[in-house]
């Protein structure tokens, strides 16, 4: 299970990468993509969407089921990764490279877990 050190993590298995003090990149973790299985569709958020931490801001669909992606921070979407539309499998192949959205004006990330905490959290979920 890959858990990059420099990222922050939510309890719903999204990762956050700070681009600068008020902007970040968001995606789903290796744990998430493994649980979801082969992804075949993604419904990206829209540029301009204002999102609160804890809101559903997009969904991904695997062969088995649809799953909501929860925004780990509050802010405004200023970019979405359109390459995922035709290649959703990138989320499985490279979960930490295949970012879903970039957000600005974001709230604090204090509520999120660091890599070590997330590792413990995942171990508990597996048990």
């Amino acid at each position, binding site marked *: 299970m890959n858990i990059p050190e420099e990222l922050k993590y939510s309890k719903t298995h999204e990762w956050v990468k700070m681009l600068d003090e008020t902007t970040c990149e968001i995606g789903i973790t290796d744990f998430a993509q493994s649980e979801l299985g*082969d992804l075949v569709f993604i419904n990206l958020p829209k540029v301009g969407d204002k999102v609160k931490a804890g809101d559903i801001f997009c969904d991904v669909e695997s*062969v*088995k089921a649809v799953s909501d992606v929860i925004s780990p921070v509050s802010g405004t979407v200023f970019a979405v990764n359109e390459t995922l539309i035709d290649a959703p499998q990138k989320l*499985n192949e490279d979960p930490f490279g295949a970012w879903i959205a970039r957000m600005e004006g974001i709230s604090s990330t204090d509520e999120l877990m660091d890599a070590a905490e997330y590792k413990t959290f995942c171990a508990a979920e597996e048990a």
Partner: protein
Amino acid sequence: MDRKTPLYDVHEKLGGKIVPFGGYLLPVQYGTGVITEHMAVRTKAGLFDVSHMGELMFEGPDAVSNIQHLCTTDISSMTDGQVRYGMMCNEKGGIVDDLVICRMKADKYMLVVNAGNHEKDADWVTGHLTGDVKYKDISESVAQIALQGPRAETILRKLCGEESIPLRYYHFVEFGEINTEPRRINALISRTGYTGERGFELYCDPKDAVDLWNALLMEGEADGLIPCGLGARDTLRLEASMPLYGHEMNDDISPVEAGLPCRLDGKDFLGKQAIIDRGSPDIRRVGLKITGRGIAREQCPVLDRDGRKIGWVSSGTFCPFLGYAAAMAYIPSDGYEPGTEVAVDVRGRLIEAVIVDLPFYNMNR
């Protein structure tokens, strides 16, 4: 309390993701994932644990008359080693279960039923038996492995002599011998399957299941054989438009509505008159090719171009080989010819689809 098949430990060792299904614990997929497993069956070969299925034996002078009464299929012209598909219906003309009937001898038959309906079927059968018939539920003493795909026969031939391999589709060899080192395993080898590909289903003693599975996997590795789970089993059968009980069939839907083979002008069977009395069916099963973005799943409403609900989806998924999402649905019998554009309401979003002829996929491609 869900039960384990004889291959449970093997699945765990192979990295299978175990889920409850039909009262058993089975892998939904392995590390390879549903899409890879599905494609293996379409292009090379896949191995499935299907031990959860139920096997019901009928023997004796009245075996035939009982099966004739219970099942839609006329078995009177079957030969030893032949398999036929059929259904058991209830007094309303709805479907109790679909199954295959294997004739061992003129007075000895094995019915193979769905795991999810096992108890229901056993109760149904025992409640309707008449005359001189020995009925036995042998499910506990039968393990079943399915070897499916274009390379299935090549793989099996490495382990079996000619005489163990049934020549024709929907036929079986009752006493097949698989040459695993250091011993031979006996298995009933049937040229049948639930994937829409060529292949075999092997029925053996639970004690032999692990050795049989391992022998097949080892022998088939060079041909690209991989273990496959329930997820791929579902995408494969749906891509091939094969019905699944609880989706395309249930206690209310008749064989005629489901578009399944059922002669109403031949021998009598339980439920036949009720089906006839229903008259021309109001609904029929069709295929939907999803042209919009998303997957239509069971129970999603199907809408016409004016937004009116005209039916519902019975099964839907993404079909990896075909590369599009497909669904089977029930809509009115009249109107809505193939090519008609419809929409499916998927969690509040309307996704475009078009009605298509079944099957979506044909192995003779």
